[in-house]
């Protein structure tokens, strides 16, 4: 039980740092204005190479988008922008 409390305490500490560090308005605005292309370049590469847009059709990108939202734990806003970019660039 002590270990669970320790882990949760550490998790709360991480969350607290997140909230404090995100209080920078400039950083928040930059993040909100990111395009689908930027998000595609910055997020897919966290696990694997950046996928080439022509690799799949529009419909397939939608399916992959939902799969990757879950697998990579991305936000709905991020995945919508990425899929929209891939559907225009393929």
């Amino acid at each position, binding site marked *: 039980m002590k270990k669970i409390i320790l882990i949760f305490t550490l998790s709360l500490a991480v969350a607290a740092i997140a909230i404090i560090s995100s209080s920078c308005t400039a950083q928040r605005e930059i993040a909100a204005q990111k395009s689908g292309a930027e998000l595609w370049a910055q997020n897919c590469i966290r696990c*694997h190479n950046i996928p080439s847009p022509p690799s799949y059709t529009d419909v397939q990108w939608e399916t992959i988008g939902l799969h990757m939202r879950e697998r990579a734990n991305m936000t709905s806003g991020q995945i919508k922008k990425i899929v929209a970019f891939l559907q225009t660039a393929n």
Partner: protein
Amino acid sequence: MRRIFITVIGLFLLGNSIVAQDSKPGKTQFMVRGYGHAGLDYYKTPDGKDISFVGAAFSPIFLFKQGNRFMFETELEFELQKNELEIGLEYANLMYVINKYLMVRAGKFLLPFGTFMERLHPAWINRLSTKPLGFGHDGISPASDIGIEFRGAAPIGGTHINYSVYVTNGPRLKDGSEEPDEAGMLNFQNYIDNNNNKFVGARIGYLPLYNSSLELGLSFYTGKVGDQGSVYEDVRAFLWAADFSFVKQISPIKGILDIKAQYNQTNVSDAYYPVVEEARDSANLFTFNNLSRAYYAQLSYRPSMAGKTFLKNLEIIGRYSKLKTPEGSNWGSDVSELTFGLNYWISWRQVIKINYAFINSEGGPDAEEGPQTQKSNSLFVHWAIGL
């Protein structure tokens, strides 16, 4: 066996034909993805040398999407093991998007215990041909389980946080009655619950930089592991992991720097197990501090901004990994591995990997007459493809 294979091939062709004919897609979408690999392995140990072609491994992933919120996904594993075709169910789960910040999964799913097994283990994603020591189906930490999970992600200002909480059947304690040499180990491939106690786990990840290049994560997984009604029914396990990832294209070094690391620890509470030769004789029991650790740190560099295409497609990798299982157990060992690799990326999802590993091991199930140190080297040449 043949029927299963034909069924899989049929589904694969069906998925592709549906996509090919789809001029006006409906709400139901079906897709087959996955990965496969093949290669050559060379092992040099004190007992001799062994060289063999390996692989013919195929892992199809089937995605069934209904509307924008619901998906069923499953991954099968086909692999030749000792002249037999082995088929495994890596995962099979339903997933539903509850809202912008939360989704639910139920079934058999890859556990977000750290990131390696959930995100990085597929052959076309893993930069090296092997998994780090202690990671994988025979590792000291879980890869998948059956249960229910709530997960999601949210922006916090310019940064992001992701989270996951889940309840599963959990692993089973090997009490030595079936395999005396493995008394005290956890069997993570035990999908039928052996007690009424459920395992609880969670992971929280934080991406503190606005470009998402850095992710820090903490995970835990805990519950009872002993068979109900046995003397081990109150034995508990507590596992935790910390993971780190930094991936970024950096102009001054003209390429992509990728650093990944994960530390796993498994602690099983004290219990007494029968001595191997005297199984089930209560007068001959032994115990030990059942603590196992495994970790890896990996660095790779790809000169993606180089002028020549050939150079752009190259990648160099180095990884150190270590596995330490309990001293005093029949399976205690201390193994470390240093692996270097040179990859050539044929496309974004197809790679040829040439890896060389130096392995030092001490102890293990065969070390009944005291610690034995072994040094071995391995060479792997693998070709992997994402589908």
